[in-house]
């Protein structure tokens, strides 16, 4: 499975958001599972390491899990796939 550039960017920014909020992969995965995620923790770990490509819906669910998890934090948020790549790059992120 190939990686398009937006998947790469989405993963990188999810990772940055997780690091800033000090959320572990295990905690992220459990929350992601709790909102309907269908990919195993092992695969999520591999995705975060850049070793595995995930379908767009699962990537967006991971971003949503991360954003809901650190709702209280002021740090960077995880982007959704429609906020990347073909979208308007000048569009400011949600605060």
């Amino acid at each position: 499975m190939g990686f398009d550039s937006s998947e790469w960017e989405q993963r990188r920014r999810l990772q940055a958001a997780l690091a800033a909020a000090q959320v572990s992969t295990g905690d992220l995965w459990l929350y992601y599972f709790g909102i309907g995620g269908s990919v195993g923790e092992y695969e999520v770990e591999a995705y975060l390491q850049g070793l595995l490509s995930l379908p767009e819906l699962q990537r967006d669910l991971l971003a949503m899990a991360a954003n809901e998890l650190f709702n209280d934090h002021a740090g960077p948020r995880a982007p959704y796939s429609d906020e990347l790549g073909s979208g308007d790059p000048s569009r400011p992120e949600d605060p």
Partner: protein
Amino acid sequence: MLDPHARPVSSGSTDSVVERADALQYELVQGPCLTAWATQESILIHDVATEARWPNWSAAVVDLPIRSVISTPLIADGQAIGAMKIYAASPGAFEDATAALMELFASPAATLLSHIQTAETPERISDSLQSALYSRDLINRACGILMERHTITEDAALQQLMRQARATRSTLMEVSAIVLAGVASDPRRGSSDGLR
């Protein structure tokens, strides 16, 4: 092994007599092992028949082949995580030196056990897993309603809920709860349903 509220979370024994004697301690909330755990000191009983410290437990085990007891707390990182005990059918089977020997065994055993699991681990896992399953179930039910309502696939239903959550700055669980409640839109946000 015990959790911080003295509830047993894990146990192992070499004989059903031991299991019975232990179960009685938890039922009666008294006995040498609970005391060993609570005081973090070894307990030596020379003869259960004349032992006065745990009258209910001594009376309850009178029919079991138990006369001598040594119980040593399992201490890891300064915390008692349980107790290890030996029972003997004859009185006066153990002495202080036996207790010292037990403590030598208990120390590495406690370290090993604390690495396998802390006393609270099963509880923590079941709490977070329970809430994950609850929200997953709720969201899946909302997906099912949308699938039927709009004749769409499961993925499309989930995507629809996700768009609505983002548009209304709610969580996925909140928008799902609204769908389940039969309300087409977030009441805080007027008539816009936030769907594209």
